[in-house]
Each structure stands twice: as C-alpha cells, then as structure tokens.
C-alpha cells in the first residue's frame, strides 16, 4: 500500500484528477437540468398550444353554455362540464369514504393474518391495473350483467373503483406519518381503538387524507378510457334531470340514470373529427379540462404545504 506522498512522487496528479471529477459533476448536473428543462418545455408548449389554438372558442361565452354541434364553431361544452361535475359527485361520494375506511382498517385494526395480506397485495396490485381494464369490468358487470346502461351512476362507480387504491394508499401513508407517541398517549389514557382513531388519529392525519382524496379525484376527472369502454357518447345534446326540483319531494335522483358525456370524452370526440375547425374546439376543451385538474392539484399541493408548516 503506497502512502499519499509516495503516490504524489510516483506521478499521480491529484489536482487534475479532482479537476476531472469536478467537470464530470458539472456535466452530470447540467444533464439533470437539461432533462428538467425538456419536461418543463413540454408542459409549457402543451399548454401554450392549447391556449393559443383554442383562444377563439375560449373567449366566446357561448362555448360554455351550448351543446355540441355538427358545426365546429357552434359546438360547446355545456353537456360535458355538467356531466363531469355530476360524475365526479358520484365518484367522490363512493370512493372517498370507502377508500378512507379501508385505509383506516389496514392501519388501525388489521391484525397480521392471511386476510390482511390478501387485502394489501390486492390494493397494491389494483393500483397498477390499467384504467381500461376497469372499463371492461364496468362494461361486463354493470352495463351488461346488471343492465344499468351507460349512465352517470355507472361512470361514477367505475371511476370510484379506479381511484380507490390511490385514496387507500394515501390514507395509510398519512396515518403512518403520525408520531406513534400520539397513539400511545391515547391508549395510555385508556382510550380504545375506536376512540384513539376518531379523536386523535383522524384529526392529525386529516390534511394528508384530504390531499390524497383530491389527487385521486383529479385523476378521475381526466380519465377517458374506462368511460369510453362503458359506451359513453361524445354527442349529447341534453342535460341530465336537475337533482333539485320545485315539486315534492324536491330532490330527485333521476340524473343518476341519465345518459351523459364528460370533458375528456368530449375532447376525444372532437380530436378524432377530420374537420380542422374541430381541433380549435378540442383545444379549447383541453384548456378547460387542464384548468379543472390543475386547480385540484394546486389545491392538494397547497393543503399539504400548509399542513407541513
């Protein structure tokens, strides 16, 4: 083993070696920045192209208040955005409580046994199932076997199954990030599992759980494939029945069984039309869709940021 001074004498040039290493570091760091730049450029180019191309329709108030039409410059997104809101309502009502409940069970109650193992493997596998396979599930089970048709309810159901794993995983992660002292203190005071969970764990994990639910819903808003599979159409020139009416009993659930279209389906329908003018309408629909999802994502990021402080 040579000593440092021997190495210097025998001619290993440490200065140039360290210079070489430093230049490698710089090269690698700039590679990282270049990749980052490509990703950001894509994001900006995508948004700018949509905004510029869709500007004529976006600035037209009729775009938001009229139904789709054969004439591209008259076509609007009324049925699409109403449909999206209704489908998301169903999705939120089903997926959020179910996902949070399953996540709570796995973190707080589940004992180490075969059932827990099955559920855990199953949840992590479900998260990786392609969305279109959920569409096939809905087509085969809800639409054909149960005869429910292509309705708002079926769309909401399939999207809630799709985002269920996201909500379960984020619920578990936010519960796991709570210091165990909190739980131990509650048990130490004589609280049982339910009291510990309801009074200490859920309030402490709330920001994380809400963030997860929003991220899941924002994914559902943009999902196209499973809704195409159940047979939703892009040309819907009516609105589902209003959930509130002037007559008794004032609240109607007829809209659940109504035909519908949603924003991504509407956009897909327009993109695949050959007329060039439909690309303008598609771009405008894309802007509205992105703004919807980005707003939800931004809200989630903000909640997490505030909770961390």
């Amino acid at each position, binding site marked *: 083993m040579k000593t440092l001074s021997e190495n210097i004498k025998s001619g290993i040039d440490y200065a140039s070696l*360290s210079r070489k290493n*430093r230049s490698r*570091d710089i090269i*690698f760091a700039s590679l*990282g920045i270049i*990749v980052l730049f490509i*990703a950001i450029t*894509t*994001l900006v180019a*995508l948004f700018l*192209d*949509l905004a510029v*191309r869709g500007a004529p329709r976006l600035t037209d108030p009729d775009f938001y208040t009229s139904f789709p039409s054969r004439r591209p410059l008259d076509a609007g997104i009324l049925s699409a955005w109403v449909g999206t809101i209704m489908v998301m309502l169903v999705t939120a009502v089903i997926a959020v*409580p179910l996902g949070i*409940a*399953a996540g709570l*069970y*796995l973190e707080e*109650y589940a004992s180490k046994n075969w059932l827990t193992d099955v*559920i855990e*493997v*199953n949840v*992590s*596998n*479900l998260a*990786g*199932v*392609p*969305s*279109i*396979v959920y*569409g*096939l599930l809905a*087509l*085969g*089970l809800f639409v*054909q076997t149960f005869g429910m048709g292509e309705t708002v309810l079926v769309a909401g159901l399939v999207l809630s199954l799709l985002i*269920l794993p996201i909500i*379960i995983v984020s619920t578990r992660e936010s519960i796991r990030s709570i210091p165990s002292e909190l739980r131990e203190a509650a048990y130490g005071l004589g609280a*049982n*599992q*339910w*009291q510990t*969970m309801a009074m200490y764990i859920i309030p402490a994990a709330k920001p994380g759980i809400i963030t997860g639910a929003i991220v899941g819903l*924002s994914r559902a808003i*943009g*999902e*196209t*494939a499973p809704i*195409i*599979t159940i047979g939703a159409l892009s040309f819907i020139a009516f609105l589902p029945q209003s959930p509130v009416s002037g007559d008794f009993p004032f609240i109607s659930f007829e809209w659940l069984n109504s035909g519908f279209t949603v924003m*991504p389906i509407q*956009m*897909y329908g327009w*993109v695949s039309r050959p007329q060039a003018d439909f*690309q303008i309408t598609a771009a405008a629909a*894309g802007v509205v*869709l992105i703004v919807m*999802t980005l707003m939800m994502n931004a809200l989630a*990021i903000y909640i997490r940021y505030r909770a961390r402080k």
Partner: protein
Amino acid sequence: MATPSSRRLETSKVQVSTHFLRKREMINQVARYILMLAAIISVLVTVGIVYVLLSEALVFFEQVSVWEFVSSTSWTPMFSRPTFGIWPLLSGTIVVSGIALAVSIPFGLILSVYLSEYANPKVRETVKPILELLEGVPTVVYGYFALIVVTPLLQTFLPGLPGFNMLAPGLVMGIMILPYTTSLSEDAMRAVPNSMREGAYALGYSRFHTATKVVIPAAMSGITAAFILAMSRAVGETMVVAIAAGQMPNFTFNPMEGAATITTFIVQVSMGDVSHGSIAYLSIFAAGMVLFLLTLIFNLIGFYLRKRYRQAY
C-alpha cells in the same frame, strides 16, 4: 386533588362504568367490521375484474382457437371472415411502450440522480410540484399534443412520416410517465442510507462517483422496480396511442407506421356499434385479459423488488 366534587364524580363513574364500557366496546366492534367491509370491497374489485375477463374470454375461446390467437399475425375482427391473431396488437404495444421507455428510463434515471444526489433541497421542493403538474395533465390532452403538435414537428425532420404513427405517441408517453419513473427511482435512492454516501465521500469520491459507484448499485433493485412499473404503465396507456397512432391493426415493428395496441383496439370497438355477445364484443375481453396478465406480471415483479429494497435498508 381530592376535592369533594371530584370524589363525587369518581363514585358516580364506577356506577356507570360497565354499561359505558360495554357500549364503548360495541362501537369499537361495529367500527371494526364496517371498516373491514370497506377493505374487503377492494378485494371484490379484483375478483370482479378476473371474473368478467375470464367468463367473457372463455366464450370467446369457444369460437376462436387459442392456437390461432397466439400464432396468427392477422387481427381483423370486423371483417366478414374475421381472424384473431393477437400479434399485430402486441407488436404495436411493444413498439409504443418501447419508445416511451427509451425516453423515460434514461431521463428518469438522470433526473432522479440529479434530484436525490445533486439538487439542493430548495430546487427539489420546486421541481417536485412541477413534476406533479406534468403527471396531472389528462392523457387525452397528451394525445392531442402528440397528434397536433409533435407529429407535424417530427414531419419537418422525417418527411415520410405519416399523420398517424407510433413514434410521436411513444415520445409523448415517455415524457408523460417521466414523473412516475423519476419519483419511484428517487424513492429507491433516498432509501440508501446516508452512511454509505458519507463513506464514499470520506474515501475522496466525487458526487458523480458516489452516485454511479455507490448509490445506484445499492438502489438497483428499487430502480429496476421503477422501470418495470413504468413498463406496466406504458403497456396499459390508452388515450395517447388511440388518438395519435391511428387504431389500424398492423403487424410491424417500424415506429414510422401507424398501428393499434391492445388498449386502442378496445377503445375502437367500444366507440363503434358492436352488439353484446358478438365475436367482436367478446374479443375485447380476450384482448383485455392479455393486457391484464401482462401488467399483472410486471406489477408483481415490481412490487417484489420494491419490497426487497425496503427490507434491505
């Protein structure tokens, strides 16, 4: 603190305690079973998927031989004399996801090394939300982008490129899954204990050498898991390809041509008027089963590898 009032409270507590405790335990048990039911529903989803795919695919394979399905290179379910060879759909799936991975793996690796080994926390905190935004853009919008922006752009370099091709959706998909690959492999690198990095620095390693000689080898199983999960994502991706690659089954490995993938075939049949129980209707479940099995294998390998690195450190 034995004030008279608190002593009175104590005695009254003793009187109600059994009732109180029984009620409390009942609530606890009810809550347990309700929450358990929710967890079991998630298992029923998987059971439902497997049941639907299997039952419809079995009817399909009563009419089409399994041998034809796995050996024929022609997929024409809508013709009057239909043929059902899965290869044209598989070749499209392989080409598009291959391009996506060729973009996403090197980029994802560079970016994750940069974020976990080079970038200071401030940069990391600003970059992560940007990547999340990139992930939040709906896939149908990426499809539009591939068809309307990227394809014309590529046509200026590659004059022979048709309007529908696999190259543009592949490239766009590569960028689209970049946040996913990056965050998974960054997780793996973060799991490498700092003591290993410090040891490398103490030996005089540069950051570059620490990353390539210590961190990446130590995180290898996690990084591999990230890429396998990305592969699963790319194989199951639908809308980008459905919009920009033309949906025509085409047995080719040339990215300059348009083709259908397993997913886009399902979209194409669903958009058309196909009656329930017809052979074309059944064929989407057979195709869906192949897709489900492919992604299931990738996911299981990926989860196994991820579990291993979590145990290692």
